[in-house]
């Protein structure tokens, strides 16, 4: 029985208290009971002793009356005077019979028994109790209980006067067990008559039976007449008192304690019964009570455990009106409160606050819940040029626009699937049981829904969107892959302005290794697995290498060197580029500084992604480098034409700031994008890098050669340096020098290499150039 349990403790306290109280009662009852018994016994004994004495004196008076009657009988006296023994004996017998006296004697004045009814023919013999006669002479009459010699008698001695004393009449009752029993039955105490002499105690008569009587002489030895004592006879207890009767004769009066204690013992048994019953009753009662208390508590505890596991469904049905009922209803209110708060939290966790649609987390969760047997499609919707609208018209309008778009998408999503806003202007549908055709049809519905212009604050906004479709399980079985594929499809749709693109048809499927690479990139940065290689840029005017393009490489411990095209796109898409770019800038700037100190004048250039360009972080990073005086060797940032066109306004803003910090700006992959010359004109750029696809086909395509030639002319016309990259043949090199390109880079000159190799290469080339001259 564990005392940690409330129930057991309640039971223990109740029962313990009862036992304590009952124990006290029992002790009290026992103690006062013993006192009461002692008192009762003592009173019984005293009253028994009084009764005994009264009986004794009654017997005496009976004897005395009979004896006196006889003594005063004229004829009897005459018989005595005449010595008529037969008449005397006859008269004695007659009077003795009247009161059933056994001992009838006539004793002469000189103390000789003249007539004895028990022994009629005896010759005169001395009366065995001469003291009795001399006492009788003093006071008349005299009585006692005496042993004569082995039998005890209660005797009276009465004188016979005629008128002078003539003789003594001695009359006596036999004191035997029957006598004692009769006395005992009247007095209510055990009566024993004993003779006490040097030899010990002899029992003359007793009302005690058998072994009790046998034990008496020994037990009574220590008894004296002054006070009562407790004697034990054959295991029974007797309160006893001795009453002296004659010189050596005592009456021992005894009251059995057990007899008087019996009602009390009965009461004790009843009390014990009550105690046992009470304990039992209390155990059961308090157990039931405790259960009434603890049962709801246990239910509350169980309910609390359910709530702990997030199950609020089972309302507590504790209907009692007491404190526990109150507790239970408080508990119910509490759990309802927790449930509603948790729902709110869940809503916050799974809901997009702006549009009220589900958020990315919820969407990913829904994706995770897809099961293989149930095909589904996801349709990723991205508004075109939303960033432009946001920047041009303010975030308020942008948000409003998103709300309206959300409502329109929500309207068409009814019954079709789960709609979520994944981020900024990115929405996604999860379309269960949609195959490619159904998804395509749904994507067209989406575009249709967004075709209508949106009116915000009296402004009419024409909007459009691109939709990327990924199919489960064909395009991926996990959420990130599916989403990634859908995102790639959206990019493709945007890129090709096709409105809708299927993930299955977009580029090559990302190799599985790419996906795992994304996860490893962060660790790689920590483990310093990224390295920067440098590709020389050759100045065609001076024949000197005056700049280097920094390219990042990943020295993977298992896969070896990984080209940036294999992981940079993912770094951009996951946002990890935010950490890579500053790291690269730092590395490059440091390296350039070291070269600068060793007398090498090399302008480093770093490729900047769209993400970098549009985020304010890049400007801050560069500003920090500038303020650390690390830009002394100069820095060139290469931005792709498509990145510039992603959000021209922000691009312009950021480029202005960068230019102000003294950074050279180069437009990378020029000619592949849709940058308008008017736009380029407004940009603070210094350099154009002609897209390598044009350079590759110089030898085969006169048109491309024409484009390159005119681009060089255009760049020069705009005051820009023109760089040709991807130069892989001497012919290309010669041709580019002819058309006036300012700088060239490519494998024909040198491939990207670590800083140390570059230094060796540069030194070698210098010696070669010297030798050539």
């Amino acid at each position, binding site marked *: 029985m564990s005392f940690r349990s409330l129930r057991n403790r309640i039971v223990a306290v109740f029962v313990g208290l009862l036992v304590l109280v009952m124990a006290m009662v029992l002790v009290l009852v026992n103690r006062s009971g013993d006192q009461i018994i002692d008192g009762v016994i003592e009173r019984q004994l005293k009253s028994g002793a009084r009764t005994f004495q009264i009986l004794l004196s009654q017997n005496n008076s009976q004897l005395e009356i009979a004896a006196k009657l006889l003594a005063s009988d004229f004829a009897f006296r005459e018989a005595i*005077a005449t010595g008529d023994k037969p008449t005397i004996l006859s008269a004695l017998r007659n009077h003795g019979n009247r009161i059933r006296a056994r001992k009838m004697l006539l004793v002469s004045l000189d103390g000789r028994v003249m007539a004895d009814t028990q022994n009629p023919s005896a010759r005169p013999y001395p009366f065995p109790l001469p003291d009795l006669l001399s006492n009788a002479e003093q006071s008349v009459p005299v009585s006692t209980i005496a042993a004569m010699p082995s039998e005890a008698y209660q005797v009276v001695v009465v004188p016979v006067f005629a008128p002078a004393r003539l003789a003594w009449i001695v009359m006596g009752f036999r004191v035997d067990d029957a006598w004692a029993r009769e006395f005992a039955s009247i007095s209510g105490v055990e009566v024993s008559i004993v003779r006490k002499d040097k030899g010990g105690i002899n029992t003359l008569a007793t009302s005690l039976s058998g072994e009790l009587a046998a034990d008496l002489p020994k037990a009574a030895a220590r008894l004296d007449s002054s006070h009562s004592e407790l004697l034990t006879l054959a295991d029974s207890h007797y309160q006893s008192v001795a009453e002296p009767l004659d010189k050596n004769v005592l009456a021992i009066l005894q009251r059995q304690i057990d007899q008087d204690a019996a009602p009390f013992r009965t009461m004790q048994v009843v009390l014990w019964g009550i105690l046992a019953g009470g304990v039992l009753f209390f155990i059961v009662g308090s157990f039931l009570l405790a259960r009434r208390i603890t049962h709801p508590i246990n239910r509350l505890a169980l309910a609390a455990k359910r709530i702990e596991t997030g199950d609020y469904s089972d309302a507590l049905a504790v209907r009692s009106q007491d404190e526990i009922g109150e507790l239970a209803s408080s508990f119910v209110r509490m759990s309802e409160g927790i449930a509603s708060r948790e729902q709110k939290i869940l809503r916050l966790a799974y809901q997009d606050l702006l549009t009220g649609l589900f958020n990315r987390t919820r969407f990913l969760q829904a994706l995770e819940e897809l099961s293989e047997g149930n095909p589904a499609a996801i349709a990723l919707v991205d508004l075109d040029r939303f960033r432009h609208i946001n920047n041009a018209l303010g975030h308020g309008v942008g948000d409003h626009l998103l709300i309206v778009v959300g409502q329109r998408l929500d309207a068409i999503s009814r019954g079709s699937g789960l709609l979520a806003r994944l981020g900024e202007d990115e929405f996604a549908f999860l379309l269960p049981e949609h195959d490619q055709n159904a998804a395509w049809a749904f994507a067209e519905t989406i575009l249709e829904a967004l075709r209508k212009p949106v009116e915000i604050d009296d402004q009419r906004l024409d909007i459009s969107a691109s939709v990327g479709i990924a199919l489960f399980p064909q395009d991926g079985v996990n959420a990130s892959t599916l989403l990634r594929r859908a995102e790639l499809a959206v990019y493709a749709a945007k890129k090709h302005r096709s409105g809708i693109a299927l993930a299955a048809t977009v580029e090559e499927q990302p190799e599985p290794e790419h996906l795992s690479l994304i996860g490893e990139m962060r660790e790689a940065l920590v483990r310093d697995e990224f390295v920067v290689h440098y590709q020389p840029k050759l100045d065609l005017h001076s024949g000197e290498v005056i700049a280097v393009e920094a390219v990042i490489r990943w020295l993977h411990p298992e896969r070896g060197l990984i080209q940036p095209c294999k992981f940079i796109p993912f770094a951009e898409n996951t946002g990890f580029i935010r950490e890579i770019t500053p790291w690269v800038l730092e590395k490059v700037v440091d390296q350039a500084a070291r070269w600068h100190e060793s007398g090498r004048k090399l302008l480093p250039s770093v490729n900047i992604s769209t993400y970098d360009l549009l985020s304010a972080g890049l400007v801050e990073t560069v500003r920090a480098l500038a303020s650390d005086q690390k830009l002394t060797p100069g820095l060139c940032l290469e931005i792709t034409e498509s990145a510039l066109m992603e959000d021209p306004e922000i691009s312009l803003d950021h480029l202005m700031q960068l230019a102000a910090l003294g950074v050279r700006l180069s437009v990378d992959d020029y000619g592949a994008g849709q940058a308008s010359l008017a736009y380029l004109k407004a940009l603070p750029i210094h350099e154009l890098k002609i897209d390598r696809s044009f350079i590759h086909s110089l030898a085969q395509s006169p048109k491309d050669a024409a484009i390159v030639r005119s681009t060089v002319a255009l760049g020069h016309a705009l005051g820009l340096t023109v760089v040709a990259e991807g130069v892989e043949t001497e012919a290309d090199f010669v041709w580019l020098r002819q058309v006036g390109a300012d700088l060239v880079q490519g494998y024909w000159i040198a491939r990207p290499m670590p800083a140390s190799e570059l230094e060796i290469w540069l030194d070698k080339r210098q010696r070669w150039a010297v030798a050539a001259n």
Partner: protein
Amino acid sequence: MILAPKAWLPLLLACSACATAGSLEVVAATPEGKPIEDFAVVLEAAAPSPTKKTKSAIIQRDREFNPYLTIIQTGTAIEFPNRDPFKHHVYSFSQPKMFEIKLYAGKPAKPVVFDKPGVVALGCNIHDWMEAYVLVVDTPYFGKTGQDGRAHLDNIPEGVYRLRYWHPRLMDELPTRELRMGNENVRLTLKATVPPRPAHNKPPLEGSGY
């Protein structure tokens, strides 16, 4: 046979010279000095004494015998006149003279003659407390003390006598002794323990003026 008469009691005495006729005066008292009434003083002569036959009477009045002690010479007759208005039943179980005069009133027909010496105790069968003693002696020389405890014996001829004392309730053993009498007066003083007469449970007479 049963009756054991009180022994003749000796006494201490002071004796003077003898004469032809003398007198004896005895003063009896308890050790506390209280005079003893009805103390019998008897002088027995060694030689035969002259008979002095007289008549005597023990009256029953107020449910008592009167006198309490009567001393007579052997052969004397005693009358038992009843002066009470109711009957008495006088008896004696004493060895020297057993008799009874059954319920009677007035004077019985004839007196009772006490012809043997000794003590005769008298009782009334109707009234237990009534008692009287008759001391029957073989000598004419006797006397008893009065209320003042004094007894006078006169005209005692010169000679040697055995002196005896007796009292119904005498406790002490008084030895007898010889006494030589002359013509002078002999005075004797004796101390004896005699308890007072036990108070008998004598009920009052109904309607009587007692």
